Structure formats: C-alpha cells, structure tokens
C-alpha cells in the first residue's frame, strides 16, 4: 500500500502505509520514482513509516536505494516513525548496504578486445605446444619404464572409441563412396569411361576420404568425449586429486587416450576404405552396367599398397591431433558446467580445423615428393 503522491503537500512527510512486501514492491518503486522526479537538490523529503505494519528485505532495499539516490542529488532525506520490527529490518539493510560497494568493471573498447583476442590466440597455441611437449616427455618416460604406464585403460577406451564407432563409420563411408561414384558416373559416362569410376572412388577413398571422414567421426565422438570427461574431472578437482595421489595426469589420462585412438584410427580407416569402395561398386553395378568382378579387378589394378598406407599414415596423424587437442582442452577447462561445454565445443572445432590443415600438408607433401 502506497500513498497517492498527489496528496502530499510541500512539507508534509511522505507517508507509507500497510504491508510493504515483495508483491507490492512494484507499486512502492513507482511511487518513490515519481517523488524522485519532482525533488531537487536542497529539498527536504521526510519519509514516515509509522503506518507501515510490515516490511520485507526487498522493499527495504528499494526504499533505501531511493533514499541513496535522493541524497546523492542533495535532497535531505529522513526516515522516521518506524515501529520496532520495521526499524530493525530497515537498519539491517541500511548498515549492510552502506559499506563500500565493489569497484565497477572498467569498460573496454573494440581495439582492446581485438588485442586481447589476438593475445589469447597466441597464448592458446603456445599452451597446446607446451602440452604436446609435456606429453612427449611423459611418453618417453613411459617407454623407459613401461611399468609406470596406465595400460589397463587402453582397451576400454579403444573399445569405446573404436569398436563402438564401427556402425557409424561403416554407414557414413559407404554413403561417401556411393555418392562419389554417383557424381563421377555421370561425368565418366559422357566419355564412355564407365570403368574409371572404380579408379576415382578407389583412389579418393583410400588416399583422402576414408581417413578424413573417419577422423571427423572420431573427433565428434571421441574427441568431444575426451574433452568433456577431462574437463569435468578438472573442474571437480579430480585431476588435482589424482596428482596428489601421485598419478601424473598426463601419464594416467592423456597417454592411454592418445594411444587408444592411435591404435583404432587406422583400423577404422581400413574399414572405411573397404566400405567406401563397396559404395562405389554398388553404383557401378547398378547404374553403369559394370560387373562386380570387373569393378573389383579395376580397383585392385589402380590401388597400390602406398595408396592405402598413406591413408593409414594420415589416420595415425589425425588420431594424434584429435586426442592431443581434446585432452589439452579438457585440461584447460575452468569454471563449471559452462566451461566444460565451451571447451568441448572448442575441442571439436579446433580438431576439425587442425585435421584439414594436417590433411592439406600431407597431400602437398606427397605431391611434391611424388609419393
């Protein structure tokens, strides 16, 4: 219950009435606002609380906020007449809020933001490189003393990242081979070169698409899982706890994940090569009047061991990239649930970016050396 401000004459106190509780806070705020607008520096504004039967913290905070604004404007503001209960709550909030507030956050401009962003990027790259260095040192340590490695976790992680990924790897790579074949078939038909669809699909799948598509799947499945898992462990201090128990987190968490991924990636890639070629074969047989035997023979003729091996080599490199980036992101997680989400996103995005970069580097390298 708040009075009609129009009823107040010049020097009469501003009289608040009844129960000032959260449900009425909007009304209280509005009527105080109206008063604030009319008052100028040098005015006096007595507030009478004698008819207030009850006040809660929210209303007290709103009332005191208004009083503070008025006092800043130079208005003399006095609160009077409060009954004991009301006075106690008002003074509780008054003494609490009169302590010094925190300093406001400094505003930043665009140039500062750009500078910060650039610096963060550079530091991020440095962090990843530092992380890779640490992993290498730890790996060398494990090679020297194999009994210090965490070998037990490799098989379960390999199962989760590898065996469980088989259905999606098969499905996607089969379709990729199929689509490749389909697109190629249309062009090749024009030259009457139907049989070369086998060359096209076979080479591009083994050298390029098989490893790449598999790596993309791995990064979305396992990379994201690594980042989220390690990130959650980091924010809940589990990694610190591991450290205090004498486990090096690199040795205990990162190496098994990396090794597991490096083991499963080539296997999945081989599978991807095979089903990719099968996808092309389906197109050849159904729409290019090729025989299964003919297609297969052409494929065997054009694909050499190096074509497959270069793909497997890429797969190993991709696996390293994915696991190192996602583990690094997991370890760098701070904050809470949101931090985990952010780092997981970053891990997948950076992995995809790095995969394409590494793939390009390989392809250029192979080309230059005519491999």
């Amino acid at each position, binding site marked *: 219950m708040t009075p009609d401000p129009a009823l107040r004459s010049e020097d009469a106190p501003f009289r608040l009435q009844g129960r000032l*509780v*959260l449900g009425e*806070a*909007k009304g209280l*705020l509005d009527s105080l606002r109206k008063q604030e607008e009319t008052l100028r520096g040098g005015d006096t504004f007595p507030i009478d609380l004698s008819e207030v039967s009850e006040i*809660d*913290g*929210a209303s*007290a*905070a*709103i009332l*005191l*906020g208004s009083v503070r604004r008025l006092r800043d404007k130079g208005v003399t503001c006095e609160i009077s007449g409060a009954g004991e*209960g009301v006075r*106690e*709550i008002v003074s*509780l*909030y008054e003494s*609490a*809020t009169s*302590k*010094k*507030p*925190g*300093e406001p*956050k400094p505003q930043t401009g665009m140039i500062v933001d750009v500078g910060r962003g650039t610096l963060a990027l550079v530091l991020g790259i440095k962090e990843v490189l530092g992380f890779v260095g640490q992993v290498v040192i730890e790996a060398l340590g494990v090679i020297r003393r194999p009994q210090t490695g965490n070998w037990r976790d490799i098989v379960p992680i390999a199962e989760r990242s590898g065996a469980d990924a088989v259905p999606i790897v098969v499905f996607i790579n089969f379709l990729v081979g199929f689509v490749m074949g389909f697109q190629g078939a249309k062009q090749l038909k024009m030259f009457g070169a139907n049989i070369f669809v086998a060359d096209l699909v076979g080479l591009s799948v083994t050298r390029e698409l098989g490893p790449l598509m598999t790596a993309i799947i791995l990064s979305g499945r396992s990379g994201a899982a690594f980042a989220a898992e390690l990130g959650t462990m980091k924010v809940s201090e589990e990694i610190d706890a591991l450290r205090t128990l004498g486990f090096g987190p690199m040795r205990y968490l990162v190496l098994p994940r990396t090794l597991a991924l490096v083991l499963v990636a080539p296997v999945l890639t081989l599978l991807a090569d095979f089903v990719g070629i099968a996808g092309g074969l389906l197109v050849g047989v159904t729409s290019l009047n090729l025989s299964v035997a003919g297609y297969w023979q052409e494929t065997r003729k054009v694909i050499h061991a190096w074509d497959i091996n270069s793909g497997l080599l890429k797969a190993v490199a991709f696996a390293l990239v994915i696991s190192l980036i996602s583990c690094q992101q997991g370890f760098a997680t*701070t*904050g*809470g*649930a*949101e*931090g985990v989400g952010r780092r997981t996103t970053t891990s997948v995005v950076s992995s995809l970016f790095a995969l394409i970069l590494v793939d390009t580097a390989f392809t250029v390298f192979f080309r230059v050396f005519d491999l």
Partner: protein
Amino acid sequence: MSAAKPAITVQNLTMGWDDRILQKDASFEVQKSEVFAILGGSGCGKSTLLRYLIGLEKPMEGDIAIEGIGAPDLAVGRPPFGVMFQSGALFGSMTVGQNVGLGLRQWTDLPDDAVEAIVSGKLALVGLQGTEDKLPAELSGGMKKRAAIARALALEPGLIFLDEPSAGLDPVSSAGLDELILTLNRVHGMTIILVTHELESIYSVVGQCIYLDKESQSIIARGAPRELQEHSEHEKVRDFFNRRARQQNDGDEK
C-alpha cells in the same frame, strides 16, 4: 503467535528407494519462526530428508505438509521457500548478482535497477557486498555458501532450508553464518531448517532438533540440543552432543 499452525508437518514419512529404506514412519513438526535442525550420523538420510521436505523427492509413504500450501510441489510455480544446497549450487555461467536476482526476474515484474538494488541488499546482508559481477568460480567455498543463502533469500521466503551451511568453513566464517541465521530468524521471523554436524552452530542457533538414526531407520531423539546432550536416553545421541568429551576419553570419534 499463539495457536499458530506448524510451519511443516511430517506424518509417517517413509523415505528411500526400492531396495534401500533410509527412514521409516518418521513424524515431526517444525513450528513457525523456529530454527530447527536435522541431525544424525553420516548416511542416515539428513540431506535426503531435506530433499523430501522441499519436494525434490516424493514420499514412498506418508505425508509432508508445508503451512499454507500442503505437500511441497515444485511444479506449481514460485516456491514458498528458499534452499541452500550443500555445495552452494550456484550457476557457474552467471555472475553472483545474476544468481541472486534470477528468482526476482522470473517471479516479479520489478525493473532491472530495482532487482539490482534488492540483490545488492541481499548480498550485503550475507557480507558479500560488491561481488555482484564476480563469477562463482572466483569465490571461496564460504563465499559461495553465503551467495547461495542470498539467492535463497531473494524472494523473501518465510521458510528457508540450509544444507550444512557451515561445514568446511573456518570458525570465524562459521560463526558469522550462525550470526546471520540468528538475525534472519529474529528480524524476519523466518523459519529455518538446517542440516548440520557442527556442534558449535547447533548449540548457538538451534531451538529444536531431531536426530535420525541409520540402524533403526527412525528418529531416536527430539528436543532442544542442550536437553538431549544431558538427558537423551540413547547413548549415541549423548555421544553426538558430547563429541568433544568423548574424544578426550578414548580419542576416537567414530
């Protein structure tokens, strides 16, 4: 306050999960404007009981009634009570100020600056003035708990639940929290329900308490802490309240 209805009435509550009963047939009342504590050893279901009282779990059997609303139901809208979880459970992606103001923005039509004024008031009340723009990750454990209390207080509830407010805090912070609990109780007339282990707090703030026992799955003592310390018929209740004395005797707490 004469003949006032109890703030909370629990009748024949059985709680637990299919194969694990924590408490059977528990009945008790919490009077209005009382500081009430749920005590007991580890694993007896103190925090779980709290989850039942605030409606996060449905009783296997029995009834819980909160004065004025009946059985606690979190689906009906603005809850009539505030809760501080053991870890604070502040939303990590929001600033402290946003955490405290969340309920106000959801359930009132106050403009931003009024919400901010209330938020500053609540934060100042718990001794965290000036932390509005900080993220929870930047706060210490004790500060997180205080911020969580400020959030629980934001909607001016008449009833608040605090799960181990002073566990893990230094004695000074812990005493500060006890002070705050007493102030809220005295000035606002708030009913406060605590789960706690801290004897210091129990003696200084708690009016009435119940003691849950794990083995018998029941409430084995109820009353004022000082009385139970002297006169409880159960040895383990007396042991609990005389923890220090017992430690001196046999050097073993558990």
